[in-house]
């Protein structure tokens, strides 16, 4: 990989600038108004350019000065944690709090190479019971327990 693409600052600048560009694109049809009577598009437009400027400065500093490299990124934690969260989001409406909670716990456990299966099962049982008792029974949140 070229050295530039390993630098934290280069990527940080690109990330910031990307949000600025997105704001310009998606906010293009908001009315601008005038400085004295600003429309809804005025501030987002100004902030978007400011963000692009910041991003450019950060990235340029990275290119010129180098700086720290990005530490290794791994796929497994990402897939497990985000997958577990998505499982929760998908299951909570119809599947009830017990299934959804178990989904989140198992997903997060898959993300971790040190997980031990008997522990995960125990934790899933404990945590789902805790979630059901505290949130649904004690605090009265309006979430079904079981799939409906």
């Amino acid at each position, binding site marked *: 990989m070229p050295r530039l693409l390993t630098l*934290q*600052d280069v*990527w*940080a600048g690109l*990330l*910031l600038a990307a*949000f600025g560009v997105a*704001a310009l694109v*998606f*906010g293009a049809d*908001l*009315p601008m108004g005038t400085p004295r*009577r*600003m*429309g*809804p598009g005025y*501030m*987002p437009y100004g*902030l978007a350019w400011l*963000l692009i400027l*910041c*991003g450019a*400065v*950060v990235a340029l*500093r990275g290119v010129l000065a180098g700086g*720290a490299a*990005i530490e290794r*990124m*791994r796929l*497994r*934690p*990402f897939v497990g*944690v*985000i997958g*577990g*969260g*998505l499982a*929760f*989001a998908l299951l*909570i409406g119809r599947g009830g*709090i017990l299934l*959804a*909670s178990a989904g*989140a*716990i*198992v*997903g*997060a456990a898959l*993300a*971790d190479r*040190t*997980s*031990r299966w008997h*522990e*995960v099962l125990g*934790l899933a049982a404990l*945590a789902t019971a805790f979630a059901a008792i505290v949130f649904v029974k004690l*605090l009265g*949140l309006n*979430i079904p327990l079981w799939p409906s």
Partner: protein
Amino acid sequence: MDLLANLALGFSVAVTPTNLLFCLVGALVGTLIGVLPGIGPLATISMLLPLTYHFEPVTALIMLAGIYYGAQYGGSTTAILVNLPGETSSVVTTLDGHQMARQGRAGAALAVAALGSFFAGSVATLFIAVASPPLAQLGLQFQAPEYFALMALGLVGAIVLASGAIDKAIGVTVLGLLLGMIGTDVNSGTERFTFRVPELSDGIGFVVIAMGLFGVADILVNLEKAELPRMTAFVGRLWPSREEFRRAAPAAVRGTLLGSLIGVLPGGSAALAAFSSYALEKKIARNPERFGRGAVEGVAGPESANNAGAQASFIPMLTLGIPANALMALMMGAMQIYGVAPSPRFIAEQPALFWGVISSMWIGNLMLLVINLPLIGLWVQMLRVPYRLLHPTILLLCCIGVYSLNSSAMEVVFMLAFGVLGYLLLKFGCEPAPLLLGFVLGPLMEENLRRALLVSRGDPWVFLHRPISAALLAGAALLLVAVILPSFRRTREQAFQEE
């Protein structure tokens, strides 16, 4: 003296067995929901409201108030132990509190937080009693230009507060400002960046962003490390050392004063009080490089400030019938149902109720201290749990917490997206905390800027013609110049230099 007679009346109301019992119930429930991330006092109080219809108004209010300040105590516990702010007001506590825990000083951090909160609660109680009417009058003078100036000062503060490269800090703050634009524009009613998703029409929830940036991103980063975080080795003493005490005490005093002042402003909140206190402590510290690495002042100041702020925000509601935030609006709604609508004549018309509730706050704070100090040992035990069992639990609590806000699975997905954003920011060497403050202040700042110009019919000088606004803006400008000046930058960079 009037004050003594009033407080005597108040205590006579507050120490009846029923009121003592419900003060305790409120404080306990508050601590519990404070410890649980995501579920906050607003949701809890609204869920318990129907129950309180059967109570006397004073008993009901004592319990509800207990939940509110109890949550401030509880919120610090998870912030310190697992780097997860239980309440928004404990976000800054994670910065130094969790570092202290990692260094084996969890017990000391929790004790400092509890003692600071108790001190702040006691002072704030007195403060409410003495200063209610005059202070609410000051807050009333604030109009759009003053609010704008106050927020500008807050934003510059956020940039100074951030560690790391200043251009990145500004960039992340601006990103927060921009994310705050999502939703319906108050001045024109136009929807911005909502992509026709109804959940976005009122903007992204603060809790959604906070849980994503701090809860989920933290898990992602930790799981990538070769060594998983281990906190089992040192649990440490349960009591702060003499040196820690010496540093913490003045910080708690400053935090209490600052929190009381901010809490009384309309729109002021416990969270803003905590942020400001942290910035202040860092600013006046002789060696600011200790901050972010377990400085005890960084726990004592904000924890005192958020408790003082929480209690002081009762002042404008009780004395003027003007709620400073959503929670106070809910309390006011409850009082209307009880048939005791707050107004400027409330203190005169309902002295037993007003002073009873005020006095119960001090009693409640004392109860919290008595409950929480022995519990510290129990909380610290949590650190012995290995991380492989802890992180699935944190993820689950984040999910349920966010879902419980609006029963929206979509918001859980948003939270995960912010987890990814936070992860990328951390990987690219940017600190995510300023994003949060930019996000909160951005829409308010824009709203008040445009409103000030609307009301002044387009005259930009309005910001300098009004003395309070001019003074606040001058302060912001000075701070900004100081940050940019080369000499200051050098000290700042030294301060944040990695070891």
